[in-house]
């Protein structure tokens, strides 16, 4: 192609390139906004996303959402802020470890107790473990479904790993319900032992859910969310 013809063609194509570049940019912005909206929608449906439980302040009764890792202390940058006398700005680090629990580590020699035992290094807290940071008392609560050992007596993770030597319990050898003896003072006050009471028959029959074909009263279940088949979309 002659240089003049090529120059003309290149000058024509420069507009096309700019238009294509602008179209690509617009598609990117569109996709970015769409992704952002989808993420926000998903986070609304999963309000506990990124959290592993909560921390209950036993002194005030307030609860704080517990992220997977972060910092406890009195500073404004802390994930769990406990404004109490003796609590340092950065008091303890915590991180959730799958299969082990919530690892709590005192920051630079801060005073942290777990179930009354002072921590010298890190230790794992389970659901229901009580932790004391100087004068602040908190209880760890973990969500169901997380891969952590069942709550048990706390053992500091100083020289040996927690729960490693415990044997698994044979649940099949146990009765389905264990009858707990009644407290003596309750017996003295004349309360009847619920385990010794005969089973009372039900006064009213349980309601039966109608099924299809039972009669005119049957109303099939309909989701409140209106859904259209893809083929019906315009």
């Amino acid at each position, binding site marked *: 192609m002659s240089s003049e013809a090529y120059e003309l063609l290149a000058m024509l194509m420069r507009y096309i390139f700019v238009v294509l570049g602008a179209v690509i940019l617009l598609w*990117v912005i569109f996709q*970015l906004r769409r992704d952002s909206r989808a993420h926000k929608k998903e986070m609304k449906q*999963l309000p506990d996303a990124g959290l592993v439980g909560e921390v209950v302040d036993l002194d005030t009764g307030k609860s704080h959402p517990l992220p997977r890792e972060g910092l406890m202390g009195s500073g404004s940058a802390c994930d769990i802020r406990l404004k109490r006398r003796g609590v340092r700005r950065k008091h303890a680090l915590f991180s959730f470890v799958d299969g082990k629990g919530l690892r709590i580590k005192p920051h630079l020699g801060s005073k942290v107790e777990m179930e009354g035992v002072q921590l010298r290094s890190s230790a794992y807290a389970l659901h229901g473990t009580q932790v004391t940071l100087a004068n602040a008392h908190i209880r760890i*609560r973990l969500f169901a479904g997380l891969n952590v050992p069942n709550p048990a007596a706390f053992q500091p993770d100083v020289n040996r790993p927690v729960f490693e030597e415990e044997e698994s319990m044979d649940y099949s050898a146990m009765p389905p319900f264990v009858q707990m003896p009644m407290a003596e003072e309750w017996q003295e006050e004349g309360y009847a032992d619920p385990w010794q009471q005969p089973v009372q028959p039900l006064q009213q029959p349980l309601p039966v859910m109608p099924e299809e074909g039972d009669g005119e009263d049957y109303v099939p279940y309909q989701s409140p969310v209106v859904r259209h088949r893809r083929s019906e979309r315009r």
Partner: protein
Amino acid sequence: MTDKKNKRRRITPGRAMVSTVMLFFFLAFFLLFLKDFNWQSLMLALAVPVIVLFGSVGISKLFPADTLLLSLTNFLCALGVLVLYRLSPERGLTQAVNYGIGVAAMIGCTLLIRYMPSFRFVNWAFMLGSVALLALPLVIGTEKNGANSWISFGGRSFQPSEIVKLALLISLAHMLSKRKVIVPMGFAAVCVLILAVQNDFGTALLYFGTALVLGYAATGSVLLVGAGAGGAAAAVVLGNMIIPQKFARAMSRVNVWLNPWQDVQGAGYQIVQGLIAMANGGLWGVGLGAGNATVIPEHYNDFIFAVIVNEFGMIFGLIVVAMYALIMIRGIMIARNARGVFHALLATGCAAMLALQVFVIIGGNIKLIPLTGITLPFISYGGTSLVSSLCIIGLMQGVAARNAAGVNEDRELAMQGGGWR
């Protein structure tokens, strides 16, 4: 059956974007083919869109990846190959090979971040290895453009500072996530000092800026940032007073930046030619293959943005800048959605490093700040630079993949009905 057909016909923004990118590069390489009827250009007109398709869609099918980030990166990399091929076919083809190596490295970095449980045990090795590698050019290095930061090996040369970038990001993010400040900041300061000794002030500025951003993101302390910036300013002033010959090159660049027209044929030649090329391009450019930006020294490297503005125009130049900005925004979004402090800091650091690099080099091209010799990420000629930039994207992709896995875990937890143990 109807659903399948409709699914096939459905156009999503992602697919439309990839299609437009493919059309762009087909037309661009085909135009270059029409210039001199070189069969290599025609082959590239067919091959580059296919590579873009694989890079944007194929990779995301193989493992969880952020397709938007992939598409943006692929567009910029392919633009680099196009511009370099138009300037020098040999460089363009070499860049295409480097692009392939970079994509493989990017996948490696993504998998590393996605599946590596912790960097606790390798962090010190990263830090010590980085300092050793960075200091290596002082012993066996070669000088290029005034900076003694290159190592020649088997006929090829590379800059260790491009590899150390990745280790710096991972180490800083790891240490700062453990609420340690002194050690990571000390490590960054040592790296900056070594680079300053090598006269590589552009990369030193990049390291310094990234460390400050990460330090602020981790601690929220303005005092730390102020102390860092003040300390660096004091070090530059003191260094200029004590060893002025070491800072002579940097000072001459500042003087050229202040008035490049003073020495048009000498020190100011490069920046003046760059400004003239961009002015010649105007809003719409002079057309692909019709420009004369090759007169700019280092047009394929430091001044590639001037070449793009010259041939594609100022509007297209702004589109390229907007694409970099969108990569940064995506990086910040990934950091915000991260489940752990380390991953959030890593994504922030990656976005900050790329943003600083783009700002420093484009700012230098348009005479906003003094020019420093660093590359424009993804576009400039240079294997190490391209591979390390793609690795930074890989680190971001790894964090994005972790976020996606975290959302799946949360969804599974929510499906179990919530409640407590």
